[in-house]
């Protein structure tokens, strides 16, 4: 019983048998089959259910335009929903399941929709489900949602991997049919570097599906030979299973190469590769797609496009039926009739809408000219058709041709609009096609083989000539010619019953009638209201028919009605391929601090800080809660000495005669008076006068400064400095280099920090408070000769230093500092302890600098010098930034010391309602202070400076907290700064 419809001939390899299953039913096929051709060979016509009415459906097409035969391929985490059976290459062990039905493909409970169809016309859902109001969310919508959709996601991570790559070429040729092959041969022989890409697994395009002769050989054989010639040219890259899915600016194309989809499993190799192809010229040879005719019940399994029927017979050796009729409005339909007959398939009738069609005689078939099909029968498989001239004909397959639409898609991706050619009743590329693109073959409306071949050669000759190559065109390619006459026929008129236009989304001619009547009179509105063309097939068979019917109904010509906009991708692209390897832990690169290995060996817990991983705390044995570790680190630092890797802070080296002048302009506060060997805190504004960043800048020499920035803004500040240097003041003698990754920098903080540093810094260097006071800097050596920079700055509020060494010494420096500090119980601390100490000290950080904060909000209004021009100076004086009641940075402590404060809480005066009008500010940072033994916070509150001692509510609705807090100075710890200066 298996492969009962397999016939002689074709390009399948009968010497090998592949086993596969559809809905668990076991079937067999051969290499060279698609899933669809193999199912047809096995007599499986029913392949799916439509979206809305759940109509039984068989295969319509033999290519990517397929609307009906969608399956879920493979199982479990590998399940791939909505996969076209027509483009799925058969492999041994393939498993496919049908989609979008309840119960089974054969007995779909949702098929009740088909009987309710009078009530489900275009846009019905916009007119109902509104009463009672609460039912939409709870009843109607969940039901609609569960009925909609097609295949299902597995819910599991995609186990396959994907790669990305770049290809540069002189000429990209899209499509390897007759035009593309002819173009590639010409371009290749000219010496240009050529990429020839085709979505199919077999080079040749329609030549594989036709019986044309090229150079006196069967077209498929010629294509095979041409491919071999091209493969032998080392300037030509032939890419099969590669879809050019989009055209982008400046000759860049997106391509997807399917590497393992045709194999039983990927074997650990990338499943697909996303290529970005950079071309100097491109030639679009994407062929054409056949379109159906709308007539009553034209969607039954067994009704397919005429070109598909002959592809199944000629290429795949699979009979599309045993008694076939052809319905056509063009000469092409007759070719199907003769090809099927030549394959020994019984053709019962050929029905041509044209009175005057030149009808070749088809053995055994009746020819009906000027006739049409007005009805069909057969629910799960076509059984008969009815002619307008009367009478039913029993058939199990009907091949339909409404003409061919050139695949203009890629010529329109830069928003070009195709133009209508009445002589072939089709849109062809026109107007503004992408720069440096040429179109040839059927894609250009050259539907005859000889035109396609000569068009391809001519386009390639021009393109390679443009680029200075010398194309040779001596050898003619002989090809057979054929008739390509057509008279437009979009639908069969005056026939009752539903006639499908968009098969997948169940859009019928009546839906187009209704929507045109209701006011949806442009092609774009029609699409949106009826959903025509919005299914997974992107309307490849439906769009032109739908807009032609709309044009009829609105009294416009097709040219006036115009198409909807063609947008990428040409065929759908797996999201996994578009992401490539940027997923999971590899989503973004990881930056490791110089002491990362050491920290990891100490069991540090790490935290993502931008792309950096930083040690958050260093748990010790017995510590069961992070707070125990953090409290210990804080107390150890304040008591003796702690060490923290602060390399992530941005570091920018500034050189030049005008470096001081430059700093003076990019910082709000003055820098000209900074002496060599000194450090100054700097506040940086955006040009609108909002605080951008802060840090310190140390003057190491006459023309040499080192600036630090916050970790988050390291890249941005550098960018802005380059902007200022190159664009604003191009003649200042200033040079910048980012040294963030070049130097490892460690904070050594605590009362014993000086004693610890004395053990590691060059002995002759005087670390005493007198010769190296707070805010001093110097270049020296440490650890027996390692170049070092020493900065006496403090974020913790303690006597503290930062020491920098070339990054390659960073890991061992951490180790050496800890060893040298053993006598002081030197303690490594992480970002949490760093944060606690800065809140205790009242230093603001990222949480406070949220891009809306002014210097005034921070209590630093006077730092913005009025005497000089600095970035942000002028606009910082705008009135709304200088309101008297502006929020001020303040400290907060809970009235009940056992309460924990939370960041993000808003402040309300006691007794006031919780409304936005009464909002007084917000808590920006909190910490449990082990130094004070209770929770403390920093925040902004209106008139903050004048309200010290007042008690307000800190309300945190989203965490269910409402805590009374006292407004205090933000400087909880050592407000006079004696410790850091000591």
């Amino acid at each position, binding site marked *: 019983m298996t492969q009962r419809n397999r016939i002689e001939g074709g390009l399948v390899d009968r010497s090998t048998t592949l086993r596969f299953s559809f809905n668990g039913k076991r079937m067999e096929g051969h290499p060279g089959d698609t899933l669809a051709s193999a199912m047809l060979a096995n007599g499986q016509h029913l392949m799916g259910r439509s979206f809305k009415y759940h109509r039984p459906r068989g295969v319509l097409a033999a290519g990517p335009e397929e609307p009906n035969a969608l399956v879920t391929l493979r199982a479990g985490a590998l399940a791939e929903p909505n996969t076209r059976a027509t483009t799925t290459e058969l492999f041994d062990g393939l498993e496919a399941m049908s989609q979008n039905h309840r119960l089974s493909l054969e007995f779909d409970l949702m098929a009740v929709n088909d009987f309710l169809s009078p009530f489900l016309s275009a846009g019905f859902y916009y007119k109902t489900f509104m009463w009672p109001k609460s039912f939409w969310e709870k009843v109607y919508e969940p039901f609609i949602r569960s009925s909609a959709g097609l295949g299902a996601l597995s819910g599991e991570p995609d186990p396959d991997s994907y790669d990305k790559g770049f290809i540069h070429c002189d000429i990209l040729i899209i499509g390897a049919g007759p035009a593309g092959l002819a173009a590639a041969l010409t371009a290749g022989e000219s010496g240009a570097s050529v990429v020839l890409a085709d979505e199919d697994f077999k080079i040749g395009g329609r030549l594989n599906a036709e019986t044309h002769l090229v150079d006196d050989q069967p077209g498929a054989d010629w294509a095979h030979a041409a491919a071999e010639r091209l493969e032998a040219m080392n300037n030509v890259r032939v890419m099969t299973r590669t879809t050019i899915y989009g055209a982008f*600016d*400046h*000759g*860049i194309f997106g391509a997807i190469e399917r590497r393992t989809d045709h194999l039983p499993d990927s074997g650990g190799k990338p499943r697909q590769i996303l290529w970005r192809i*950079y071309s100097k010229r491109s030639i679009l040879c994407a062929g054409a797609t056949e379109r159906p005719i709308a007539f009553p019940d034209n969607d039954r399994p067994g009704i397919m496009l005429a070109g598909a029927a002959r592809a199944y017979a000629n290429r795949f050796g699979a009979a599309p039926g045993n008694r076939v009729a052809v319905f056509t409005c063009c000469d092409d339909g007759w070719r199907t009739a003769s090809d099927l007959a030549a394959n020994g398939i019984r053709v019962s009738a050929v029905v041509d809408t044209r009175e005057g069609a030149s009808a070749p005689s088809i053995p055994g078939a009746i020819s009906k000219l000027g006739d049409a099909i007005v009805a069909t029968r057969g629910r799960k498989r076509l059984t008969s058709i009815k002619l307008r001239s009367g009478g039913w004909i029993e058939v199990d397959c009907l091949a339909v041709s409404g003409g061919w639409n050139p695949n203009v898609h890629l010529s329109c991706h*830069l928003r070009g609009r195709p133009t209508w050619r009445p002589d072939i009743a089709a849109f062809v590329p026109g107007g503004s096609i992408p*720069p440096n693109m040429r179109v040839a073959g059927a894609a250009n409306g050259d539907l005859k083989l000889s035109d396609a071949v000569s068009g391809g050669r001519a386009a390639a000759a021009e393109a390679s000539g443009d680029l200075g190559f010398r194309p040779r065109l001596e050898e003619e390619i002989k090809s057979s010619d054929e008739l390509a006459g057509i008279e437009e026929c979009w639908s069969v008129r005056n026939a009752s019953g539903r006639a499908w236009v968009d098969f997948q989304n169940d859009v019928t001619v009546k839906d187009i009638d209704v929507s045109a009547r209701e006011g949806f009179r442009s092609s774009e509105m029609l699409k949106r209201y009826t959903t025509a063309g919005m299914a997974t097939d992107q309307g490849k068979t439906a769009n032109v028919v739908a807009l032609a019917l709309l044009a009829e109904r609105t009294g416009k010509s097709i040219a006036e009605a115009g198409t909807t906009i063609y947008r990428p991708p040409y065929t759908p692209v797996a999201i996994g391929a578009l992401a490539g390897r940027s997923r999971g832990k590899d989503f973004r690169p990881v930056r490791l601090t110089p002491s990362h290995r050491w920290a990891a060996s100490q069991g540090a817990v790490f935290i993502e800080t931008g792309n950096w991983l930083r040690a958050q705390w260093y748990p010790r044995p017995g510590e069961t809660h992070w707070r125990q570790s953090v409290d210990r680190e804080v107390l150890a630092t304040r008591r003796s000495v702690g060490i923290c890797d602060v390399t992530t802070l941005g570091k920018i080296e500034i050189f030049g005669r*005008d470096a001081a*002048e430059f700093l003076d302009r990019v910082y709000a506060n003055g820098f000209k008076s900074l002496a060599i060997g000194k450090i100054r805190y700097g506040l940086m504004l955006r*040009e*609108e006068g909002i605080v951008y960043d802060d840090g310190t800048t140390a003057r190491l020499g006459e023309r040499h400064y080192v600036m630090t920035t916050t970790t988050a803004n390291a*890249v941005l500040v550098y*960018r802005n400095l*380059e*902007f200022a240097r*190159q*664009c*604003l*003041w*191009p*003649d*200042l003698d200033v040079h910048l280099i980012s040294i963030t990754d070049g130097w490892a920098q460690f904070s050594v903080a605590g009362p014993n920090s000086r004693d610890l540093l004395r053990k590691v810094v060059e002995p002759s260097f005087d670390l005493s408070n007198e010769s190296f006071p707070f805010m001093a800097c110097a270049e020296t050596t440490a650890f027996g000769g390692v170049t070092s920079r020493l900065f006496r700055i403090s974020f913790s509020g303690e006597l503290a230093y930062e020491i920098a060494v070339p990054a390659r010494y960073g890991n061992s420096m951490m180790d050496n500092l800890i060893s040298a500090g053993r006598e002081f119980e030197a303690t490594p601390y992480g970002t949490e302890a760093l944060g606690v100490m800065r809140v205790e000290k009242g230093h603001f950080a990222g949480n406070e600098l949220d891009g809306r904060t002014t210097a005034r909000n921070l209590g630093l209004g006077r730092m913005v010098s009025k005497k000089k*021009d600095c970035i942000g*100076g*002028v*606009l910082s*004086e*705008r009135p709304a930034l200088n309101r008297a009641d502006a929020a001020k940075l303040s400290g907060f402590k809970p009235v009940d010391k056992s309460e924990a404060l939370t960041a993000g809480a808003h402040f309300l005066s006691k007794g006031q309602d919780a409304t936005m009008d009464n909002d007084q500010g917000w808590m920006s940072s909190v910490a449990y202070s082990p130094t004070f033994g209770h929770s403390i916070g920093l925040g902004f509150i209106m008139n903050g400076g004048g309200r010290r001692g007042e008690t307000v509510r800190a309300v945190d609705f989203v965490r269910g907290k409402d805590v009374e807090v006292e407004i205090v100075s933000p400087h909880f710890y050592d407000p006079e700064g004696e410790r850091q200066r000591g």
Partner: protein
Amino acid sequence: MIISHPLLGPRDSAEFVYLGDASLIGRPHAFDDDAMEKFYEYQFLRDNPDGVHRELWYHEQGDRSWLVVTRDTATHDILNVELARDVARQSGRGR
């Protein structure tokens, strides 16, 4: 898009960071009488043309040059690329 860097040749636009209208080179003088108004216009108002636009791109993943790219915002065609420093000097900016 591909930007033809005056020093480095054609480079993918993904290597660059975009800032905006090249008028941002023309930062006003802070001590002019109408400095506030000039800074307001400089910082906040844009011609925003549907057509030829001179704009600033920064080659962050490259040589860190700021470039002035003349590009058609309707078609994305690039008509000219210059070093911003040269443009700044030509417009009279110096120290």
